[in-house]
């Protein structure tokens, strides 16, 4: 029993943190909103150099061969900087889908390699999300249809852009035709892959929301340390302190849940209840962070020019991605209210 991350994992996380602090700083992110596709190739190249794109690509395909517990740390950093969806979708969720294909499958090795080297992005479309994120920059679409797994050339589909409250999100309705030719795995074979993809997607949003919450909290702490009202810095008012302390509490107890879910996923253990718990806890933490951190900013918090909006809006947007509250609460209820469910003391690490 050891619920810690290794030194290697923390070193890798810290490196990514330092990298993103420069390369995904708010002013750059804002510039990216203005570009047509919002996804600069140069940044993607840097992600590949940092090893992020190949993080969980097997070593034989040019990656680092790491897994979900590494990703859960990375995704928190990506969330902290509100980095776009194509990173986790391509490099975590799609990679896991590809790794789940039979070893000899002709798409497996080549696409894994292309992801690792940064040559390819993959968008993932699952029924639970009505729209597909970052489909416009994908080189391959992995789509679900009646439980089967299909792979499509982006040229063969029709994309309709849908604006999100978060200007950095790029969402598309994908009109496409499932055929035997573009079917990679039929429904029975694809079921465990899609199940894991859904869990991974939900965990990825949860982890990003944890990072987003931390960012909002940091921004609020910094702002209230400077700004004065009634002759005192805002941060010295008890009401302001308590608003932010409440966020800190929520966040402290949401994080371990995500880490535990990552471990379950990483080890192929039953993960759904842990993932859903993680998503619910992170959603609640980030909703409170957005609310309270905006509140202590006063009217400034309601402006476009304040960077806080980037993180608030991402948090609001991710709340409904990869399963909304209803979906995840139903999964928790199913698991915990079923007869004989292990619930009491001592059940935390029994599956």
């Amino acid at each position, binding site marked *: 029993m050891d619920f810690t991350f290794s030194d290697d994992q923390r070193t890798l996380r810290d490196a990514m943190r330092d990298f993103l602090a420069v390369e995904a700083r708010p002013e750059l992110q804002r510039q990216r909103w203005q570009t047509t596709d919002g996804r600069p190739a140069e940044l993607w190249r840097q992600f590949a150099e940092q090893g992020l794109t190949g993080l969980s690509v097997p070593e034989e395909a040019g990656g680092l061969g790491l897994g979900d517990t590494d990703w859960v740390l990375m995704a928190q950093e990506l969330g902290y900087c509100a980095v776009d969806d194509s990173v986790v979708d391509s490099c975590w969720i799609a990679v896991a889908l590809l790794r789940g294909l039979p070893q000899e499958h002709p798409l497996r090795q080549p696409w894994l390699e292309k992801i690792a080297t940064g040559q390819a992005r993959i968008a993932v479309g699952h029924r639970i999300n009505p729209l597909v994120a970052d489909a416009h920059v994908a080189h391959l679409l992995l789509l679900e249809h009646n439980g089967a797994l299909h792979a499509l050339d982006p040229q063969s589909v029709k994309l*309709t852009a849908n604006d999100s409250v978060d200007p950095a999100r790029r969402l598309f309705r994908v009109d496409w035709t499932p055929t035997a030719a573009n079917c990679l795995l039929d429904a029975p074979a694809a079921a465990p892959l899609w199940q894991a993809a859904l869990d991974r997607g939900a965990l990825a949003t949860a982890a990003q929301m944890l990072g987003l919450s931390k960012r909002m909290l940091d921004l609020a702490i910094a702002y209230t340390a400077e700004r004065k009202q009634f002759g005192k810095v805002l941060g010295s008012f008890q009401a302001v302190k308590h608003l932010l302390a409440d966020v800190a509490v929520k966040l402290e107890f949401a994080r371990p849940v995500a880490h535990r879910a990552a471990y379950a996923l990483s080890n192929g253990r039953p993960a759904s209840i842990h993932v859903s718990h993680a998503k619910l806890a992170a959603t609640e933490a980030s909703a409170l962070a957005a609310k309270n951190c905006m509140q202590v900013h006063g009217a400034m918090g*309601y402006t476009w020019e304040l960077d806080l909006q980037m993180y608030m809006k991402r948090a609001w947007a991710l709340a409904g991605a990869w399963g909304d509250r209803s979906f995840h609460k139903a999964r928790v209820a199913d698991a915990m209210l079923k007869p004989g469910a292990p619930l009491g003391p001592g059940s935390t690490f029994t599956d």
Partner: protein
Amino acid sequence: MKLEYTDQQRAFRAEVRAWLEANVPTKPLQSFDTAEGFEQHRAWERTLSTGNWSMVTWPRQLGGRGCDLIEWLIFEEEYWRVRAPLRVNQNGIFLLGPTLMEYGSEAQKQRFLPCMATGEHIWAQGWSEPGAGSDMAAIRTKAVRDGDHYVINGQKIWATRAVYADWLFGLFRSDPDSQRHHGLSFILLPLKTPGITVRPIAQLNGQAGFAEIFFDDVRVPVENRLGDEGAGWNIAMSTAGFERGLLLRSPARFQATAESLIKLYLANRDSADRDPALRDAVMRAWMEAEAYALATYQTASLLKAGSRIGPESSTNKIFWSEMDRQMHETALAILGARAELMPHAPDAGDVGQWLDGFLFSTAGSIYAGANEIQRNIIAERMLGMPR
């Protein structure tokens, strides 16, 4: 106590309903925080004034109908029943209007109220300054007397509607040596006055709902002052006071939201019921909107009976702002993955207004005195706790 409407009140409701059904724009107007939407809303104000509906509580000769507050509540209920457009002139009709009625000279009333009723003058408000947000007494923008004019220098911020509005009212420091809430005057001025620069500030939704206003030797005639020189603080406090708060946030508005939320829930019940908290939140929405309406009717009845409102009215702001946010959060949770779509997104269907409403609701706990300040006020003035 008699909780039935009189025949006259029923007749009034019928008249409002008939007129609104005949006149409310069938197509939703654009946001009044855009140039085009602003003029659409101004046109709607003009239409309202043709029926003397601009502000039914004003005297007939100033463009109103001499109604009491109960009738005003009925008007609002009918207004929100048909989801008529937001009032672009709310700073004028709900805030400045009643203040003019109480503190304005006869000449000022004649000069400003009819133009307000017709929408010819759309008003912006100028309370806050950089460094004086919730702490309004920290105002520093100067209005220095120079003969029969004030010369204004300084800066206002968070002036709602100021990007497209015609006139501004606000507090200015007319005594340069004064401190805090002393030496302030309440002044009205056209935003086109030379020396004024308006810098739009984009809100969360990207629209310029408020502005920063820079004053550089702006000359305003003394007759544009409301009330006595140096008496601005009390006038402003009354502007921010209860009756206007009641006007600004009529219960019908929240009852309309609660009703829409119930419909949204019922239409999405299969998925929503998987999260039992949603059903509970929907029920709470209805109950709270109803409680707010009841509290308002009770207050309106007391006012009508000649009572004055005590400090307990300071509880309103907290209640409606939290209720409004909660209702919109519930709606977004019901919408799930669709919640993030902008109203114009092709797949947003007809639910995009919930996102808009949510963004707006997030400001409710901040503007008109942050809720933390409101809680201090409740504790100190209503409960008598030590400062």
